[in-house]
């Protein structure tokens, strides 16, 4: 429960991906380069904090907050 996810990151904060808590969503995220062990950095948030823009494997990926919540970080 206490596990933090990408959705909890503040702008500019870095973290390393540990695991996913949603199998189907993870397929798409993996293909886009969100791999376990990869470092991510919260780039910016759209107004109202959703969706978010994430820097991962050398580029910028946008996703909804609910999707970011499926990526668990250390």
């Amino acid at each position, binding site marked *: 429960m206490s596990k933090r996810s990408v959705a909890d990151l503040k702008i500019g904060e870095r973290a390393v991906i540990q695991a996913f808590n949603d199998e189907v969503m993870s397929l798409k995220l993996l293909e886009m380069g969100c791999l376990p062990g990869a470092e991510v950095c919260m780039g910016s948030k759209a107004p*109202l904090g959703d969706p978010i823009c994430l820097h991962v494997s050398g580029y910028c*990926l946008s*996703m909804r907050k609910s999707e970011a919540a499926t990526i668990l970080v250390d």
Partner: protein
Amino acid sequence: MKPPIIALIGNPNAGKSSLFNQLTGLRQKTGNFPGVTMDRKSGPWSIDDQTTATVVDLPGVYSIYPKSLDEQVVTDILANPKHPDYPDVAIVVVDASNLHRNLLLFTQVADLGLPTILALNMLDVAKEQDKDVNAVRLAMRLGVPVVRINARTGEGADALRKAVMKQRQEPVLPGKPLFDPADEAPALIANTKAQYGLSNNYLALQYVIQHDGFTFLNEQQRKGLDTLIADHDFREVPFQAGETITRYKRIAQIVTEVVTDQRPIGKPTWTQKLDRVLLHPIWGYTIFALILLLIFQAIFAWAAPFMDGIDTGVAWLNGQLKESLPPGPLTDLLTDGILAGIGGILVFIPQIAFLFLLVSLLEESGYMARVMVIMDRIMRKFGLNGRSVVPLISGVACAVPAIMATRSIGTRRDRLITILVTPLMSCSARLPIYTILIALVVPSRRVLGIFNVQGLALMALYLLGLLSALLAAYVLKLILKTKERGYFIMELPTFKLPRWNHVGLTVWESVRAFVWEAGRVILAISIILWVLASYGPGDDIQQAEEAVRREQPTLSPDDLNNRIASERLEASYAGKFGHFIEPAIRPLGYDWKIGIALLSSFAAREVFVGTMSTIYSIGSGSDDEGVTIRERLQQERNPTTGGPMYTPALAWSLLIFYVFAMMCMSTLAATQRETKSWKWPTVQLIYMMALAYGAAFLTYQLMA
């Protein structure tokens, strides 16, 4: 002999389309992939003296596992050697500045065992990011030819041509696959290969995982694969996740060997700095609103001088023809029927060109993706999603490509709702109607120094369309329930300077499509209408003319001619038809003349203006050369009150009617094609028409 097929494959934003434009230029053609309505862009490319290949531009994808309908096409072709577009050589365009992610798709394509070439693009962008890619080492590691290109400038096209020639003469196939499914599920792969006569392991895996989406397999073959999956207790989601992780692990190793990255850690790029402003809670929306305003200013104000020029030119030509040709029905057909129709089409080219110019500039620069991000949250409230923004904005140009653009929306319900509400966005075909009616009843004044009141009125109509689209979406969201979950995982491309040849091509293509596709319909209907308006049943027309001469012997020759002309129109087939429907449209303030135009505009809205010009140039006598349709409408008198026919109440009632009305057969056809049902186009037609009638009724009754 059938020309060899060269397929261009790659991630979105990798430069695939630029390369395609470089190779084929203006000789490219847009058609459909067989069996699906996806746009298929292809064009000839001469690779040596004897051979001209056909280059096919496949939709951009991140992986061979499709996430939406348009991505399905890629796998459907690559997994089926009998497909007419199955490539002899596959060129995978790879963005060197993001080699890591781009190589995922490349290794999947290469593992299918096709003769593959890697086109290494955007080396300049990589350089700017202090990255250096060693193409020779990359080729050695991957076991395929690697060609350095610059898709924007066309650099490397010659080397690419040579590589294709070589791949055709003596194909170099990638040796050991990067990922071999037989390592993980040997029995399943072996059995699938044996049962379906396949020789490639990775292709066999695609059969297993993707057979539900493969159009080339029949019912029995699909069932057979289901049985195989059950027999081997195969779980596709973890398997696919494992595949992606394994691929990336091996790709990471290759990337560290071939890329030297000297980027200072933490140094923000230009794109990141820009994003801070463009995604800002206040500035982001302000900038977006200003850009929308700019688009409307361009369409209404900047296009005006060009439109006036075309208008005057056509009127002048019409006058010249009437003077030099002998008078008679044929001359009338040529001038009042055909030329009036052509004029009605040509005059909208400047607006359409401006619109597509600006929209494609936004797409090209990468800004459109930012718009999707800042709009997603708001759109979701209405049952739409950030990706619905592009169809909705394209809907301002034309609902047909807009509805086709909804294919990138992965969620079925979001997509259906977007399709149903997109035609409420005021398309360019409504612009002619808006322009003429606004010019009739709204003064051309400036407020605050820069904004034209007419431009603001136009913007209000567009906003009304947008608001009603959002409201309709909200209602649909409440009606259509779904368990399916939507997602919004999307790459934010780096900002780029627009490629002008690209923008030019888009503008040229859209103008050409409007003139040819819509133009033919408009012209045909204009001619038919002219005939219907010039002839009547039996000798009704002669009788009407004689009656006028008999009853009004004291009128001046000019008035007499006008009177005769309008009586003749009333007695014609078109006039009878208009009278027939008049009772139904009377409450909206329309007379039988407008009734004719309404009916004819169901084929396409823009026909309305053509019809009005046909009806009124016949109706007011045809000696007044150089008078435009706008002036004719101003002269039109209401027969009962004697005042102007086009009062603000009538004009606004018509305007409101056209904001909502589903007056476009092509849109209905597109909805039918995209939803594969007759239910949804019917729903769309009925709800929009009811909305139009109700709103126009209210407008007229309140204003009159």
